């Protein structure tokens, strides 16, 4: 089962770059252009990871991240903030909004891809462990 990545980015070229960057990986990509569309897309189909631009029309990345992290069912989805805000304290703000990682623009596609893989492997690992745990409980009750 291929991983699903939600890309929230209003700049067409940056969406294109992310798409081209992810093309060889086989991940499934959903693209939206603002926070509201992102929430709608998540409600429609749960992604395994979110790449979130911060400066967005309609609803910005911080607000969107806060709403996602407020939902217990969605809380575990990792969010990588990708922002061109460069003022100091920006990373703090991103973490406070619930983002799991902060990547300033301009980003290197190579490095961003490495981070994405890292997060997905970690969540896959977590999933495996959860599965194992459930199975061991199942054994306990059976015998």
């Amino acid at each position, binding site marked *: 089962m291929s991983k699903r990545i939600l890309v929230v980015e209003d700049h067409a070229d*940056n969406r294109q770059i992310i798409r081209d960057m992810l093309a060889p990986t086989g991940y499934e990509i959903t693209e939206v252009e603002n926070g509201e569309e992102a929430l709608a897309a998540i409600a429609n189909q749960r992604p395994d990871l979110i790449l979130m631009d911060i400066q967005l029309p309609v609803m910005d990345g911080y607000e969107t991240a806060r709403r996602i992290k407020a939902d217990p069912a969605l809380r575990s989805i990792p969010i990588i903030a990708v922002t*061109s805000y460069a003022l100091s304290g920006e990373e703090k703000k991103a973490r406070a909004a619930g983002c799991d990682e902060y990547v300033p623009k*301009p980003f290197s596609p190579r490095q961003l891809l490495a981070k994405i893989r890292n997060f997905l492997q970690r969540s896959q690992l977590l999933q495996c462990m959860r599965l194992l745990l459930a199975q061991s409980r199942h054994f306990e009750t059976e015998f």
Partner: protein
Amino acid sequence: MGLLSLHEANQQANQLVALQHKIEAYRQVQHDTLRQLYGVSTVLAFPNATTLASVLRQMNQFGYDLDRISFVAKDEAALLDQVREECARFIAVVSHVIDLIRNGQAAEAKQSELAEPGPLADKLERLTNQLVNRAEADMVAGIDASQQTYAKSQALVAAGALASFVLTLVLGHTISRAVIDPVRIIHDGLSRIAAGDFSHRIEVPNPDELGALAAHVNSTREELQQLYGSLEEASRHKSQFLANMSHELRTPLNAILGYAELMADGAYGEPSEKMLGILKRLEANGKHLLGLINDALDLSKIEAGQLVLELSDYSIRDITQTVRNALEPLAADKKLAFKVEVDPEFPSGRGDERRLTQVLINLAGNAIKFTDAGEVAIKAEANNGSFHVLVRDTGPGVSAADQAKLFQEFQQADNAITRKKGGTGLGLAISKRIIEMHGGRIWVDSIVGQGSTFSFTLPITVERQVEAA
């Protein structure tokens, strides 16, 4: 008063001199009378032409002296008339005696000389004595008066001195109230303005030039206040503008750098050798542009006072390690030795670790950039509560003229090498501000052709950032 008194004293002295002259003249007449008598006696004893001529000459002299008396003693008119009368008679008698002698009547003349000139001469002497006495009395009185005048002028001078002293006090007080106090108020007001406090109005009630000056200062203060307000707003706008600009520039730059990297990684098909070279140039230029954007933003934040140090405990060893990790590949590319000398027992400091790392990366990065052969060394020492960190290279060095400009914005050593090496020209200016915000100092020692040493010192423990002057 003093002048008047002096004038009086002067007059007294003149009078004394006049009296002296008078007395002299009187005495001369007395003397003449005696000589006349003596002359007549001589003629009688030895009646000849010589003695006669002598008596006649003395008679002339007598008349002359008499005129002198009337000239010097105009005020003694009554007595003088008497003297003159007696003199005339005396002269007449003497003349008579002489005539008798001339005519050979010596015996008669002798008789006449005995009978008349003697008593007359006595009378004359009495009279002139009287005159002399009076003149002397006048003189004593004059001296007395002169002494009195002297005492008076002494008292007057003393009183004058006292009066001037009191006047000075009164004037001083008045001037102080009228001039010095307002000047002080204006000065205090200007000091406040100079310190950036524009809220204080200067109150000087003087209706004179000082009042006008205070009014001018007040109106200037209001203009300055407005100007200052708009400057502050402009500065805020500038910072906001730069922050927005930085953000807006980053977005397209992200696309440029992103596409270049994907292309180089073969995302759009395997690139040729030549294409790879061009893509590297594209990436290098894009990164340079990004450096410029970051530095301009940093500098504008520092200038707007928005750059705040994030103080925490740090280790110089960790910082140098970070710098080594970041720059060792660059040094290796140029086949330069890269040395870091820090004592393992180095104490930990307190300051903004990220900013200090930025400074050291800037200094060491410059050293690697400008050095073509040899080594780049980072050395850190701690003594007397300060860290002393230096970056030494074996590069081309910096001329004394360029050393002074090096830490100013957009000032690079102006030679072909720097143009070839690029750089934003802001790194050292930012480094200088960061070190100064830590209360430290940064400088360069260099001899052209023998390399450069960039050094900075900073307090080991920084508890408060130093505001930019």
